[in-house]
């Protein structure tokens, strides 16, 4: 009978992991369990549920820091920040939109530990970084059953190795987080989005590059092909977001509109809630949520080569749907259901230009045979395995979730 352990204290987390080590019985690590369908399916006897370690411990708006237990929901944290006109600048996406309720709990439920352990971000990633750029310090239980801390509660800190970077994007394979301290930033007063209508994809990445390379502090740049609609915006459209204090936004939108005239297409503007709705849908890849049986890839490449990757995949994969974020550097791609989720075609196209493709949504039987995380070269994979072993020598924390070795 599989057990779910739900500790209330870091010491209980330590005891649970120490027991798993002594029994050589691996654990699945979850907090709010909204992303458990990502990665290689786990076959663990027991689950360690960290959602009991919940709550905001410290929030100092003027120091730009917040500290919370792993099970604290992102919703709770975002509400607290909003009350002080602050936010998480990296705009963590809600994978629940793509993954659906299914095995997980759907949208709006994810925990702060999940946000950092999966290194989430959103459209503002190109300007303000990802979760990894905002975690200042943590306490966690390693696979050795030891409570360790790293980093601190100040923004500027180079004392010891930056293990915060390692735990971000480790998907619970290195340590079970018991406490997180992260950076928060002021929210802008207003936002406006420029929409360029009808650019082909090559021209769209040039326009996005020009916008990102301008002095107008563009915070996000996305391109939607004809069949994609987000936040009520559809048609072939290239979107550029400008955020900040009102007079600055007005001036920058005007200047940017003038500069984009060189691309020779109609330009319109959406403001405030309409702009927010568009970027929220793009953040969560909502345009690809339905139909639910389609596998979804998240592809990260250099911004200018996004369309080249898509052009290499399309002749090989019938009826895919996609859109670009991160000025062309992020391709969200949905493919028809198949035994390998078109992994061969996708990964070959990415390997030609350099980057990685992560399988975010696929049926368990697909994830059992296809690497969800982009395969690494032999020496890097071997190094990653040694890093895993340094935290979790017996392989008791989410073993095999990211790769067969880690």
């Amino acid at each position, binding site marked *: 009978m599989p057990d779910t352990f739900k500790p209330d204290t870091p010491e209980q987390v330590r005891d649970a992991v120490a027991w798993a080590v002594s029994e050589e019985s691996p654990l699945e690590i979850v907090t709010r369990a909204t992303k458990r369908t990502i990665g290689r399916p786990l076959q663990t006897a027991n689950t360690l549920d960290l959602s009991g370690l919940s709550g905001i411990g410290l929030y100092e708006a003027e120091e730009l820091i917040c500290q919370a237990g792993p099970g604290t929901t992102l919703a709770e944290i975002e509400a607290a920040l909003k009350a002080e006109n602050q936010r998480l600048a990296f705009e963590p996406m809600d994978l629940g939109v793509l993954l659906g309720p299914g095995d997980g709990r759907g949208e709006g439920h994810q925990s702060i530990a999940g946000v950092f352990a999966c290194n989430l971000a959103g459209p503002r990633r190109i300007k303000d970084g990802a979760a990894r750029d905002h975690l200042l310090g943590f306490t966690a239980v390693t696979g050795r059953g030891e409570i360790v801390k790293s980093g601190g509660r100040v923004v500027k800190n180079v004392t010891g190795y930056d293990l915060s970077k390692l735990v971000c*994007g480790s998907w619970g394979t290195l340590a079970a987080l018991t406490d997180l301290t992260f950076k928060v930033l002021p929210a802008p007063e207003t936002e406006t989005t420029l929409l360029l209508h009808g650019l082909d994809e090559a021209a769209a990445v040039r326009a996005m590059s020009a916008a990102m390379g301008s002095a107008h502090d563009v915070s996000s740049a996305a391109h939607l092909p004809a069949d994609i609609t987000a936040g009520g915006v559809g048609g072939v459209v290239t979107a550029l977001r400008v955020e900040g204090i009102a007079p600055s936004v007005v001036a920058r939108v005007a200047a940017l509109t003038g500069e984009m005239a060189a691309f020779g297409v109609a330009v319109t503007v959406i403001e405030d809630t309409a702009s927010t709705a568009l970027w929220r849908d793009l953040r969560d890849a909502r345009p690809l949520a339905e139909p639910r049986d389609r596998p979804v890839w998240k592809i990260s490449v250099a911004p200018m080569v996004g369309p080249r990757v898509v052009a290499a995949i399309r002749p090989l994969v019938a009826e895919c749907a996609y859109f670009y974020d991160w000025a062309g550097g*992020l391709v969200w791609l949905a493919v028809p259901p198949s035994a390998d989720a078109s992994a061969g075609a996708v990964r070959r196209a990415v390997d030609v230009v350099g980057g990685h493709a992560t399988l975010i949504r696929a049926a368990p039987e697909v994830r059992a045979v296809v690497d969800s995380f982009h395969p690494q070269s032999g020496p890097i994979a071997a190094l990653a395995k040694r890093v895993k072993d340094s935290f979790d020598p017996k392989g008791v924390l989410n073993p095999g979730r990211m790769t067969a070795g880690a």
Partner: protein
Amino acid sequence: MQMPEPDQEVLGRRSEIVDALRAIVPGEGVIADEREMRPYESDGLTAYRTLPMIVVLPETVGQVAEVLKYCHANGVKVVPRGSGTSLSGGALPLADGVLLGLGKFNRILDIDFDNRTVTAQPGVTNLGITTAVQHEGFYYAPDPSSQIACSIGGNVAENSGGVHCLKYGLTTNNILGLEIVTVEGEVMRLGGKHLDSEGYDLMGLLTGSEGLLAVVTEVTVRILKKPASLRALLLGFPTSEQAGACVAAIIGAGIIPGGMEMMDNPAINAAEDFVHAGYPRDAGALLIVELDGPEVEVDTLIDRVREIAEANGSTTLRVSDSEDERNAFWAGRKAAFPAVGRISPDYMCMDGTIPRRQLPEILTRMTKMSEKYGLRVANVFHAGDGNLHPLILFDANQPGELDRAEAFGADILKSCVELGGVLTGEHGVGVEKRDLMPEMFSETDLNQQMRVKCAWDPKGLLNPGKVFPVLHRCAELGRMHVSRGQLPFPDIPRF
């Protein structure tokens, strides 16, 4: 400063090692003459000096790999060095080690304005990257004060910051890709021109690892368009408390300035004596607040900051109306270290960080320590992020003063940790703060960090004696005490 005992067996093989390295790096790339090695005996932390066993200056990645492979196979320690500007002794040589200088890796390899990246060899200076792209109006954001001299490879090793990092981040937030060589001589690429990692963020781990994990041979950074407008305010306050309250109010109002620097009264007067920047000599604290961005935004925020400063009791308030005036505001701050150097034979620059609201407390403590040790202290801070740079004034020629200055510095850093801060904000641990690491980390914490080191460097040959106060063998660290058959924690709720 206790360094690992030089290995006599290795020193006995010195001439053999020199010959082997000369076979890899021909010509003048291997320096074994004592006089010629002298320039490498210390880095920016000149209080500590050690002559290396051999200096090697490779020119190709292949040579770096071969040198490391040889040293690894033959049990020879290696200390990597960029421009040697570390303020924590990160590039302090070892008497029984090879000093691996990367100064010849000084080329920019790729400038990609479309993707907004520059790829450079590690010996290119920080400022050299901006110089290479400024004709198109771009720049590289992190700007450590040594940016004319410090190398981008060294910036990666130290995770360097600078005046603008509150708004634009540290090195780790501004790099996209690395080429590295492991101690075993394996060449690897991490990242590239794309974002995020396909697996563990090894690039993030490597950044700030102080040359203990691998040698960086190529760096890809992101570049930004220069802000359209830059203006600064020069604000004087009767006390540091009021200046600190003003900083908190600015951030509380949702404003993140490009730079926000504070100086205390001794630093103000030292700077004023040196560069005559027009600083108010009677002010208890001076703030320089720089706003950058679109013109309308900067002008609007300047007015908002002006109101906040007035509400917080500023006694001096000047706003720059020209580039000359803005540069004049900065002149004293930028000259603060040499200015202090003029009023004292020697000074020691510390680098702790505190939660900002603890500023009055740490200043009070420093005043008491100053009396206790009989040494003066001047303070400059990166006010926005609580990073302190106390400058302890002493005279190394007076017996005991260096020891007193070191003890004073250690007390300041211990106080930083006590108040919720950290030992080093941007200068690194190196040898300087190595023995203070237990103030911040438990033995368990440090052992885990050393296990990460073992994953990269199982023989402990890369830059040993830095960062960690006690060296353990990897086999010893890897051991695990497992007690079987214990009842699993009856008090943990399960379902």
